[in-house]
């Protein structure tokens, strides 16, 4: 080209010539642009910290909520239940079902008593009320309270009957009234003694006395059986009979003396349907903060030098950087389990199958992906900011745990669990942000996996259980903690006692299925 000829070209050449040439010469932006850039970088960094803080705040909030639930449940279980109801079922276990029969007879006799009509008989009614008052004042035991209530009901029935007018012959009425009075007195005496006795003895006596009262009431409607009543009256007021009445066998004699038409109708004591229920099943989901806590650092000679000059020292530096930047991630676990009750208590053994996915993040300036530098070419540009790497660990586990729980209690109750589990690390994946080529995946059968394929952990947890009345399921919610027995990396440089082990803390929510077991 002639030097005197000015350069010419097409439209594209013209623009390319001027615009690209001018790019070489500095076209500085305003000074504020750099300030804004600095500010934006700071904001981005703060945002990253804020996201991390958010996770911690949620964990704290969940813990507080759980603690409130646990405290509320405990408070409810301690102070929220009426004491009389708690002991009511105990009455059904009285010797030979006498208590149940007596109570039943007593309650069914009362209406009969009303229809029989006690005319002008007001004295027995007053005594009946007096007996009820005495009974209720003697002790605060729930069973006695209940009986006192029944006695009061009987007294009120008598009062009602008093206004209904006479329908029995005077003799019969008087006999019956006197009998009732005697029986009530007998009950008074036994109740007075009852307060001074220990629990077991007093209950027997109480039931016996109550039986006398009930038998008396059976006799009352039968105004035409005055002779029989007189016999019974004599027997009931006889001190010897009263002494015998403390034994069930003596009551049988009393019953035998009644006419066949007046013998008490046997009432079936309702029994709890038998349920075979040693096994229970359930599902659980756990969300936790998982820290793999891996330490890949080794002695300088422990790394492969096959990647080139200085690769061992670069990898060691990267391993330290990885360790320093290692952050916990979200861990999730889904488990199906079966528990078998141990004996008749509240302890059970639990096992099942669990699938877990845990995550973690770290960062290094040379894209450390787990066991080594992903690509040594990064190290040439290693002066930049750390490159974030995400790790995902998938595993399957079989746990064996000892569990304490109250399988009978409805409402809120506490549970606790401790045990160990064996896990198979199915898959590990390392992703370097913005660099898909550096992704590493290790499976259970990968020959060069730096991770331990089979690991063991110990685990414990406790929390609240909610079991609605009348249902065959329960919900569990509580914190859990897990600690690895071995390090996650397969070739740790530390000895067993100084290895860095993975751990996790989280919340477990579970659904328990299966029929409610029957405790003896």
């Amino acid at each position, binding site marked *: 080209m002639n030097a005197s000829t000015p350069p010419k*070209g*097409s439209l594209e050449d013209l623009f390319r010539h001027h*615009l690209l040439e001018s790019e070489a010469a500095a*076209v500085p932006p305003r000074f504020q642009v750099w300030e804004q*850039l600095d500010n934006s970088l700071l904001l981005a960094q703060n945002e990253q910290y804020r996201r991390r803080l958010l996770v911690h705040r949620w964990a704290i909030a969940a813990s507080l909520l759980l603690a409130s639930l646990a405290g509320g449940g405990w408070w409810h279980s301690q102070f929220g239940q009426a004491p009389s109801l708690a002991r009511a079922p105990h009455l059904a276990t009285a010797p030979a079902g006498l208590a149940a029969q007596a109570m039943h007879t007593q309650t069914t006799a009362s209406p009969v008593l009303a229809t029989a009509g006690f005319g002008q008989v007001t004295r027995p009614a007053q005594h009946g009320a007096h007996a009820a008052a005495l009974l209720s004042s003697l002790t605060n035991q729930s069973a006695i309270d209940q009986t006192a209530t029944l006695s009061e009901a009987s007294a009120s029935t008598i009062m009602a009957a008093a206004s209904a007018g006479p329908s029995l012959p005077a003799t019969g009425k008087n006999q019956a009234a006197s009998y009732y009075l005697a029986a009530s007195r007998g009950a008074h005496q036994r109740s007075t003694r009852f307060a001074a006795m220990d629990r077991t003895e007093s209950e027997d006596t109480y039931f016996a006395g109550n039986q006398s009262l009930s038998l008396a009431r059976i006799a009352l409607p039968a105004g035409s059986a005055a002779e029989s009543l007189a016999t019974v009256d004599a027997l009931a007021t006889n001190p010897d009979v009263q002494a015998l009445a403390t034994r069930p066998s003596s009551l049988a004699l009393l019953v035998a003396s009644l006419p066949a038409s007046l013998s008490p109708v046997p009432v079936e004591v309702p029994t709890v349907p038998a349920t075979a229920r040693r096994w229970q099943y359930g599902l659980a989901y756990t969300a936790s903060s998982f820290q793999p806590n891996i330490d890949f650092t080794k002695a300088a000679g422990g790394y492969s030098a096959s990647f080139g000059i200085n690769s061992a020292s670069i990898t060691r530096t990267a391993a330290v950087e990885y360790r320093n930047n290692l952050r916990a991630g979200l861990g999730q676990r889904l488990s199906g389990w079966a528990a078998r009750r141990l004996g008749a208590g509240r302890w059970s053994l639990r096992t099942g199958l669990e699938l877990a996915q845990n995550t973690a993040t770290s960062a290094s300036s040379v894209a450390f992906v787990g066991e080594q530098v992903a690509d040594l*070419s990064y190290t040439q540009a290693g*002066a*930049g900011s750390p490159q974030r790497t995400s790790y995902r660990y998938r595993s399957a586990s079989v746990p064996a745990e000892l569990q304490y729980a109250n399988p009978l209690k409805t409402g809120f109750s506490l549970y606790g669990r401790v045990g160990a589990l064996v896990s198979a690390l199915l898959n590990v994946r390392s992703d370097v942000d913005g660099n898909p080529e550096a992704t590493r995946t290790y499976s259970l059968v990968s020959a060069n996996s730096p991770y331990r394929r089979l690991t063991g952990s110990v685990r414990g947890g406790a929390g609240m259980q909610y079991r609605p009345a009348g249902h065959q399921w329960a919900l569990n919610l509580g914190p859990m903690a897990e600690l690895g027995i071995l390090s996650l990396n397969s070739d740790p440089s530390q000895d067993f006692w100084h290895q860095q082990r993975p751990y996790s803390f989280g919340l477990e929510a579970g659904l328990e299925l299966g029929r409610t077991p029957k405790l003896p």
Partner: protein
Amino acid sequence: MMAVCLRYAQTTFEAEDVLQEGFLTVFRTLASFRRECPLEFWIRRIMINAALRQHRRNAPLVAVSDGDYPETLASEEFTFSNYAYAELLRVVQELAPRYRLVFNLYAIEGYTHKEIGEMLDISEGTSKSQYSRARVVLQNKLTRLGTSATS
């Protein structure tokens, strides 16, 4: 890099925004730079991507029919010394956004119409059509500039 941003932006302020966003990306991903190319090219590519993102946010590309476009573009010769950088930059910035993008990518950066179509999510024909129209506009403006310069 400011010069690159100025070519893709309509105003200096817009160019500074692109520059800022581009450098944020550079600082975040610098460690992933693998030296497969010079660092300057890598940053330049990031700036172009930032400009494309900015354009998508501000003025989504309107689907334009492929239309008619000349297969062979008129080739007129321009004397380089007749034009200054500032004039050429102003001419490019005055182009409609979609014309400016296609012109920059094709004429300056050297991308093919197929690649531009993928980058802008338009068809290859649309890219060609918009480029030819941009070229006509620029040619007219340059002619006027040359005329006024010679007169």
